[in-house]
Structure formats: structure tokens, C-alpha cells
């Protein structure tokens, strides 16, 4: 009996559908992708909406002097400021920003470690680095990979539940996860020693240790000090602790502040930084639209902890001139789409996928930009080949689609109308089974608060960044986002390894990074060799470096460098048109006061570019 109840509750849960009105606040709204505007010297942009402010705005102005009740209403100026225009950046440029963020971290990591180790091992290391300036190669991280992430909370729970019912779904991770590390851990600094030697003097006293030793008589050992050769006879722990603490304080206050500054500069400075340079990137004719490399950030309160983020919508190119590549992209979109709707959709929705996809792709190939381009007709034929036969097979099988015949466009629009009829029947709790031929359809296809058909829209969060016509036809845009996290970890990060598999590759690189960054004092043990020589017979004792190696590391607390401060992470996400932009707070083009030093008025900078 119990399972019947469970089944009943389950079907109720299924029938609930999406719930958008509760939490959506920051919406991606009408994007402006008109390429002819680009040719006229206007930068492509998109529009985002603060829904709560927009709602208030729609109610009209509230004037308490005229006896209206204005409790719970926003100030009028705030309600008016509900639309924001965000210029698009190129994906390539955001990857370069990500590289700079990585480089800033690497610089801090190097300065942190080498300050500590040089101050601890003063004067030996002071001679080597601060005086002689021994230095390895410059830091030069490669461009970080593009990785798409789907923030699970941005996706409606009804969709997520449906899509993960059969098996877990890969939502990706922050593109920056595991990248806060050096590319190579070398036993020499990869930054200019001046960067960590500031204020450091040669320090010979106090005495740091009395070396451990072993005594050999005629080549055989007779005595060794306890712990030889790892430990010296005596070690000045107080001084070592004080040195490490001093160095850590210096690194975590001064060098860390530099890191924060560097990050803020990298994230908030447009590249190129003047409107003239930006406009000169825009081509004057269609064929050379290409992908102008520009980064035009929009602070959404800024990236600091407790604020929001810095975002930049991205394109891979303005216009796809390589048509075979475009077809591959469209097919990749089809694969992603089909994979998701197969997981999350009902039988009817799976059928409608053909219609939905066909219409979007057709809009793309029919758009004016492609008019007369050789090869577009081939793409249209490809599309028909993909959709025609399976769609027609379904119109025969599902009663509500029965009357749909004629050419493919006709069938598609007829199927779309039929599906709306079906949706109304679902909402009115009518005879759905008759229309679908016995296939269950409990959820509404069209949700009240969500533009488009919600399941198809949600699936767009899995689509990759693309060119403007593709965004326009399929109705989504990809964003670059950066924000700070507070992380409690060590430097280098102990989590940068997959220890679930102990194998040569992941063990060695990680072990090397950890070992080469231990906080150690290098001391030199001694061997005292006593020999009877014929000089005439006399006893000679002389110290020499031991066979165990000239210098020995002695671990000094905290052994590995701790870190529990803010660190900047980045990612790329895709947002369907009319749906929530994840990972942000407040309003675009506003900065928290702590970032006011970087308060370039970006809105003013972008205004002539966007024309609004």
C-alpha cells in the first residue's frame, strides 16, 4: 500500500512544474545583435533587467503627497534604473584576463614562499637571492582552457530533478578550480628577487644552530649526535619561529595587498581601454567582422567577498564565416539539446525537440547576414536531412499532430500550434491522453513566469559560447564571470591532486610541489675524521662534509604555508534569454566602496560605443 502512496506523491511532485516567480531577479533580456549596427561603428551589447525593480516600475510612480500608499515600494529613481546595457567581449580576451588572474596568484605564491624561506635561511639565502640575484625563468602561465559551468541553483529544480533522475549530470566546475598553482615548481624563485627581498638585511647573528656531527676513527664510525644527519645538535627554535612569523606577516599584508590590487586592475580595466582603440577594432565590412579582441568588463558590485562579481558577456566571433565549422557547431548544439531533453523531457517533448530545433536553426540560416553566402543552401539541406524523416514519423504517431502535412516549414508550424493546444489541455486538466496517444504529460510545457518553453530554455545553459547570429537564433548568451572566495587551504594547495587514484602522474607532480615548498631550515652536518697518519706517526682530525649530502633540511613550523584569505575564481556560464544571470548581486555598473580606487566610470566609457 505504501508504495502506491509514494507513487501518488511522486506523480504530484512531477506535476508541479517549474517555479520561477520566487527567486529570479537578474534577467538576461533583449540582446542587440544587429550586425549592421556593428558596421556603423556600434559595439554589440545585450540588455539585462532587474526584475524586482521592473515590476515596481510597471506599477507606475507612487506619490505619497497625493494620498497613495507607498509602503513596500522602491524609490522611483531606483525603479527607473531597471535596464542595463552590457557590451560583449571576446572569449579570447576573457581567457587572457583569466591568465592574468592566474599570473597574479602565481606571483603572490612565489613571493610568499620565497620571503619566508629567504628570511628563515638568512644569511645563506640572502646571499644567493637578495645579493647575487639568483633567479629562474619568468612566470608565464599558458592561456587557461575554456570550461563551461552550469550553476545548479540557476537551473530550475524541476528541470534538474528530471534531468538527474536516471543518472547524475555533469555540471562542470569553476574554470579556475585547481589552477591556483605554479606551472612548474622550481628550487629557484620565478619572480625577481627584489620582489621578496625588500627590507631584508643580511643577518649573521643570532647563531641559528650548532651542527650535528659524527666521528670516524680510521674510517669507521664511533659516535654520532642524536638525530644526525637530519637534526643539528642544537637549533635556535625561538629565532626560527620569529623569523617565519615576521616573513609571513610581511607577505600576507603587503604582498597579499599587491595581489588584490593586481586582480582588481586586471578585472576592471577594459582592454583596450579607450573608446577610440575599441572602435578601431570594429571592421567596416561584413567579410572582415572576425573576432575583435576586446575585454569590456561590467562590475556587478565588484568581485570582492560579500559583494557580487565582475561579468562580461562573450562571443567567439562576431560573424561565422566558416560555414562547415558553423554546421559543426549547430550539430554540437543539437547533440547537447537532444541529450538533455532525452533525460528531462516527456515523450511529447522529445517529439517537439525536432520542431524547436528546426525553427531555431532555420532562423539562423535564413537571417539576413547569411543572404547570398555560397554554402548556406548546403547547410539548409543538412538541417532538413537531420529533421525531416524523424519529425514526419512522429506526426503519424501522435494524434494531436496528425493533421500536420506539407513542406517541412508547414509541418513545424502546425506542430507548434498543436503543441500549444496540448499545453492548454494540460493546464485545464483536459483529456491529455487522447491528444498524446496515451503518452503521459503532467507538466505544463509553457510556464507562467518563464519566456519560451521552459525545458528547452533551461537546456540552453549547457550550450557553448558562440557567434552573434547563433546567440540570436537560439536565444542565449555566454558570460565570463569572476568573483572572490574565502579559502582555507595551504600554499601550494594540497587539494590540487586527485588522490582517489594513486598513480605516477598525479602523485609525482603533486608530491614535488608539496616537497619543494616545505618550510625548512637548511643546516650542514659535519663529519670529523680522525686518522693516524705517517707524518711521522701522528693523529690528525679534520672536519669534512658528510656523505649524506652537504646540507640537510630541518622542518620549521608551520611546515607548509597556510592560506585562508580571498582568492579570485573565474568561470564561463551560458544564460538563456529571459532567464536568470547567476552569480551576481545588486546592480550592474556599481562598485562597492572598497573598490572605489578602481572606479573608472565604465558606463560613461561604454556609452558612445553602445549608442545608449
Amino acid at each position: 500500500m505504501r508504495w502506491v502512496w509514494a507513487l501518488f506523491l511522486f506523480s504530484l511532485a512531477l506535476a508541479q512544474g517549474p517555479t520561477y516567480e520566487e527567486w529570479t531577479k537578474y534577467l538576461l533580456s533583449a540582446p542587440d545583435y544587429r550586425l549592421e549596427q556593428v558596421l556603423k561603428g556600434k559595439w554589440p551589447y545585450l540588455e539585462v533587467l532587474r526584475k524586482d525593480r521592473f515590476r515596481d516600475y510597471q506599477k507606475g510612480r507612487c506619490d505619497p503627497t497625493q494620498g497613495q500608499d507607498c509602503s513596500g515600494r522602491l524609490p522611483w529613481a531606483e525603479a527607473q534604473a531597471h535596464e542595463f546595457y552590457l557590451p560583449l567581449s571576446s572569449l579570447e580576451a576573457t581567457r587572457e584576463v583569466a591568465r592574468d588572474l592566474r599570473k597574479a596568484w602565481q606571483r603572490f605564491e612565489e613571493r610568499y614562499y620565497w620571503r619566508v624561506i629567504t628570511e628563515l635561511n638568512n644569511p645563506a639565502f640572502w646571499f644567493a637571492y637578495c645579493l647575487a640575484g639568483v633567479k629562474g625563468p619568468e612566470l608565464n602561465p599558458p592561456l587557461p582552457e575554456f570550461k563551461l559551468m552550469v550553476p545548479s541553483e540557476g537551473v530550475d529544480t524541476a528541470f534538474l530533478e528530471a534531468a538527474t533522475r536516471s543518472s547524475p549530470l555533469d555540471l562542470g566546475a569553476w574554470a579556475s578550480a585547481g589552477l591556483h598553482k605554479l606551472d612548474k615548481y622550481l628550487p629557484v624563485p620565478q619572480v625577481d628577487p627584489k620582489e621578496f627581498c625588500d627590507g631584508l638585511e643580511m643577518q649573521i647573528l643570532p647563531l641559528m644552530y650548532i651542527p650535528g656531527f659524527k666521528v670516524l676513527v680510521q674510517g669507521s664510525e664511533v659516535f654520532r649526535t642524536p638525530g644526525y644527519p637530519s637534526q643539528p645538535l642544537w637549533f635556535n627554535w625561538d629565532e626560527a619561529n620569529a623569523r617565519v612569523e615576521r616573513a609571513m606577516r610581511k607577505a600576507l599584508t603587503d604582498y597579499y595587498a599587491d595581489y588584490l590590487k593586481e586582480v582588481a586592475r586586471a578585472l576592471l580595466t577594459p582592454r583596450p581601454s579607450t573608446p577610440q582603440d575599441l572602435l578601431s577594432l570594429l571592421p567596416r565590412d561584413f567579410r572582415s567582422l572576425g573576432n575583435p579582441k576586446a575585454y569590456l568588463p561590467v562590475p556587478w558590485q565588484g568581485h570582492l567577498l560579500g559583494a557580487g562579481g565582475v561579468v562580461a558577456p562573450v562571443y567567439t566571433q562576431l560573424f561565422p564565416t566558416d560555414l562547415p565549422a558553423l554546421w559543426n557547431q549547430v550539430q554540437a548544439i543539437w547533440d547537447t539539446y537532444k541529450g538533455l531533453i532525452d533525460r528531462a523531457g516527456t515523450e511529447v517533448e522529445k517529439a517537439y525537440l525536432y520542431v524547436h530545433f528546426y525553427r531555431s536553426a532555420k532562423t539562423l540560416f535564413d537571417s539576413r547576414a547569411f543572404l547570398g553566402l555560397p554554402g548556406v543552401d548546403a547547410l539548409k539541406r543538412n538541417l532538413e536531412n537531420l529533421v525531416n524523416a524523424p519529425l514526419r514519423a512522429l506526426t503519424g504517431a501522435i494524434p494531436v499532430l496528425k493533421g500536420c502535412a506539407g513542406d517541412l516549414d508547414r509541418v513545424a508550424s502546425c506542430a507548434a500550434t498543436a503543441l500549444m493546444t496540448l499545453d492548454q489541455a494540460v493546464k485545464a486538466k483536459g483529456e491529455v491522453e487522447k491528444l498524446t496517444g496515451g503518452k503521459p504529460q503532467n507538466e505544463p510545457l509553457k510556464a507562467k513566469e518563464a519566456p519560451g518553453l521552459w525545458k528547452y530554455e533551461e537546456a540552453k545553459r549547457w550550450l557553448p559560447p558562440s557567434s552573434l547570429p547563433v546567440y540570436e537564433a537560439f536565444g542565449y548568451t555566454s558570460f565570463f564571470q569572476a568573483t572572490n572566495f574565502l579559502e582555507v587551504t595551504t600554499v601550494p594547495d594540497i587539494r590540487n591532486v586527485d588522490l582517489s587514484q594513486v598513480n605516477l602522474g598525479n602523485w609525482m607532480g603533486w608530491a614535488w610541489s608539496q616537497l619543494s615548498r616545505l618550510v625548512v631550515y637548511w643546516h650542514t652536518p659535519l663529519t670529523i675524521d680522525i686518522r693516524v697518519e705517517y707524518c711521522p706517526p701522528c693523529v690528525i682530525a679534520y672536519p669534512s662534509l658528510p656523505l649524506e649530502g652537504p646540507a640537510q633540511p630541518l622542518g620549521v613550523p608551520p611546515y607548509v604555508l597556510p592560506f585562508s584569505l580571498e582568492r579570485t575564481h573565474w568561470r564561463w556560464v551560458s544564460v538563456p534569454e529571459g532567464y536568470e544571470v547567476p552569480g551576481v548581486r545588486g546592480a550592474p555598473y556599481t562598485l562597492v566602496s572598497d573598490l572605489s580606487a578602481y572606479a573608472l566610470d565604465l558606463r560613461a566609457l561604454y556609452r558612445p560605443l553602445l549608442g545608449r
Partner: protein
Amino acid sequence: MRKAFLTLLVALTPALAQFDWLSNLDWGGISNNLNKVSQVLSCDPSSLAQLDFSQPSLVLRGVYRVTKCVLCTTLKMCGLPDDMLYPASWGEIQRALQSGQEVMVVGSGAGVKAIGEYLGLVLVGGGCQNLSYGGVPIYTCPPGGVRIPKAYIVTDGATARYLKEKLKRAEEEGTLKVVAVGGERDAPELSGVILGLPLVWAGGRPYLFAPGYATPDRWLWLTFAGPVSDKVALVARLATSYVVSASRRQEEVK
């Protein structure tokens, strides 16, 4: 000239010794022959494959132990202490909470939810006996409550929303601030990975924890040895100041 050269050579010796030491480590032995080298086996390297990654504190401890042992047995470096993290009793944590200093909790997930709820209760005093996790009541709250001037919890968005709802009273009184990392709605399972080791900063000392049981009094609490603790405290103290500005920023954004 010769004198300068000699000084330089002497000066460089320790730096070059790093190369020597690192290059002499038996890397092939450590990695390739894990199963063959009996010395390495005595360090129980297979324990690395059984680490519970939902418990970062235990991962840190486990990795440290194996690394330290491998270092000492395969080659020369035995200068590290036996352990880096030592168990702390629940009584110690309670004393730290009662010391009249600021408290900060960093982490995400069920553990932080539980410790947050506990803090919410001790901050407003009493009531602990009515609280139970999975049917296990907590009797460890002092009847009059604990005087904590200010407590901060830094956690992911989802946990933050949960705690703000649960701990309304303490938040309204201003004794507790919950700071969410990331955007307003984000992906809790991923920021969970990013937040790293769960940390409680209380009484001027850092504590890590491994929330194996439902109630904080039965968890494994870990702390560092004195000199390590001082260094970690240095970072944690700085972190609190950043968290204070973050919570101020949150108000600003509102």
C-alpha cells in the same frame, strides 16, 4: 675577485643543496614501486586511496602522515614532527567559544549547518536541550548561554540562506553575521569544494573539524601544535578582518 667568488660559492651552497636533496630523492621508488618497496609500504600509502574527500581536515592529516613517513624512510628528511594536527576535546572548543573573543567559522555543508545552529543557540542562551539532530539531544550548551561579542560564518550561498533563516534572532541582535560567498544563487556543491578545510576560529586559536556525527560535541576536532597554531592564527586573524569588511559590504549591496 677571488674572495668575492669564494663568498658567492659559499653563499650559494645551501641554495644549490636544495637541488641536490630533491634530485636525490628516490622518485622512481616512491611512485613506481609502491608495492615493492617494503619501507614505503610501512607508511601505508594505500591509505591515500581510501581518504574521505568530504572530510578535508582528515585528508590533510592523512596526506601529511604518509608524506612525512615516506620522506623519512626513503631518504634523509626526518626533521618533521610526527603529526601536524592533534585532536582537541569538545571541552577545549567550548572554553575557546567562551573566551569572550570573536568567533569565525569557514566551510560549507552539513557540518557548518550544525555548528551554525549550535552557535545560534548558545548566543541567545538556553534552549539547547530542545535541540536534537537525528534524535540525539545536545546537552552541552551552558544554561545561561555564552557571551560571544561577534560570530561570523562564511559559507556557500545555499548554506547561508538556510542559516539566515534558522538564526534570525541572533542575526537581528547583531551578534551573528552570515557571509555568503559567490552570487545570490549559485552552485553549493561546487563552492563546497572551493571553501576547503572547515575552520573554526575561537579563543585566538584555529580548529579544524571532521563532522562524522550529527552533533558537534561528538565530532573529531583537530588543532595544530603550538608554533604551527601561532602561524595559522596569523592568517586567520587577517581573515577575520576581511570577513568583517565582507559582511559590511553585504549590507552595502542591500
